[in-house]
């Protein structure tokens, strides 16, 4: 306590010496200084010390004006080859990607959700279930529908195929479970597919025989998978696809066609049963001959 008080007094006197005190406080200290000999000595020591430090400066600066002219010429010669750099705008400074906001960083749950949605989210119909049970803490179920790899196909074709395959996708949607650990950069990012070699390019490369490196082989496998998926979608899964809204339309067409064919056949059978006038005359002629 005593030391703190002593330090505070020292600091007061330094401020007094440097004229950094408020006028009222300075008046109080002046009064104290006038009546206290120890305080006078305290201030005197500080004043002498400051004076000594100021006086002990080595004055080795050259006084010759030609020296400074030479220095000036050297500086300007060094500046000659340069030009002022344009000022960097603040917009450019903000080009770097923003990190998670501090509020999200503080809340681990929200951070986890934000990271999760950033990694797995997007325009697709994803459903996230973050309810944690006692047996599986930090567990998350994601209902991510299987989608066909449609990147090589044109965009409108992709949309058409997605629409047609939607019932299949919904029927095949399976929950996937991800283990998590919030302190170790959870959740792990899915490895992104390598689209450096598209199947279309692969087909072109097959013609030249350049299918040796790993990306090409991977793309080849992906192309096979895509082809089988497409075939399955168009062939084997077609009835399943048609089981939804399009099935009704198809059934009505089939029914209409069936009904049309039935009507035609019935008409044909009736026509076959009815004797024609020519046949009727021929049979009557035969009967008369007999």
């Amino acid at each position, binding site marked *: 306590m005593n030391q703190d008080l*002593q330090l505070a007094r020292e600091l007061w006197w330094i401020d007094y010496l440097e004229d950094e005190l408020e006028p009222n406080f300075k008046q109080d200290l002046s009064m104290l200084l006038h009546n206290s000999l120890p305080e006078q000595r305290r201030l005197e020591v500080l004043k002498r010390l400051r004076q000594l430090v100021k006086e002990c400066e080595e004055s080795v600066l050259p006084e010759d004006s030609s020296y*400074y002219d030479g220095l000036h010429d050297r500086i300007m010669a060094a500046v000659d080859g340069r030009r002022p*750099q344009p000022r960097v705008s603040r917009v450019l400074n903000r080009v770097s990607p923003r990190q998670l906001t501090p509020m999200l960083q503080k809340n681990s749950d929200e951070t986890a959700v934000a990271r999760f949605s950033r990694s797995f989210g997007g325009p697709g119909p994803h459903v996230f279930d973050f309810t944690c049970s006692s047996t599986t803490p930090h567990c998350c179920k994601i209902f991510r529908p299987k989608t066909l790899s449609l990147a090589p196909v044109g965009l409108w074709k992709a949309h058409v195929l997605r629409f047609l395959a939607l019932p299949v996708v919904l029927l095949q949607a399976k929950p996937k479970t991800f283990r998590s650990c919030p302190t170790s950069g959870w959740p792990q990012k899915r490895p992104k597919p390598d689209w450096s070699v598209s199947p279309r390019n692969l087909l072109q490369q097959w013609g030249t025989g350049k299918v040796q490196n790993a990306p090409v082989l991977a793309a080849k496998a992906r192309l096979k998978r895509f082809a089988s998926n497409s075939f399955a979608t168009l062939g084997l899964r077609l009835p399943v696809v048609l089981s939804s809204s399009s099935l009704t339309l198809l059934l009505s067409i089939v029914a209409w066609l069936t009904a049309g064919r039935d009507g035609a056949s019935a008409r044909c059978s009736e026509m076959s049963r009815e004797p024609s006038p020519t046949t009727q005359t021929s049979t009557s002629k035969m009967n008369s001959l007999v």
Partner: protein
Amino acid sequence: MKSDIELVEDVKAGNRRAFSELVQRHQRALLRLSLRFLRDLALAEDIVQETFIKAYEKIHSFEGRSSFKSWLFQIAVNTAKNRLRSLTHEHVSIDDVNLGVDPGAENDLVRMSLSQMIRLEVSKLPERQRIALTLRIYEDLSFREIAQIMGCPYDTAKANYRHGLLRLRERLEALQSQTDWKDFERFFPMEGERMGPEVEQ
């Protein structure tokens, strides 16, 4: 006669002669400041030249919130600090290193004059305290300017100066108690009642 700010505006507009005028105005103060940090004239000249080059290149970033001199000092102090750090990291030949203790080293302390001793103690201060002390006592800058040069708040600059001065006084008092040097008594009367009765307890 144009002010510094007007000259800076001229330089920004492409007037090279205005920058020449600024160099003439401030080169002496910058040389003095650099010399205090580096204690070598050739190195100090390099610092001054480097400071002006940096100032010329970054002249568009000077917004006039502080004085041009403070801005130059800030560049010079940072440049000198970097140079000092690089000097301390430079390779020293083993032949240049003196192993062992000079037998006359103890007497050197006595032979040193008081001003030399103070200079030595100032150079031993922590970097920020030394900068604040130098800028305040030698350059007579306000604490607001010192804060701008050091890139710290006003109170921090002030605290650095006060603690530097107090540490310097403690060191000199300790030296006085170690040596029977009469020069000290001329400047620091070390009597019993100097610190008051509460300190003696």
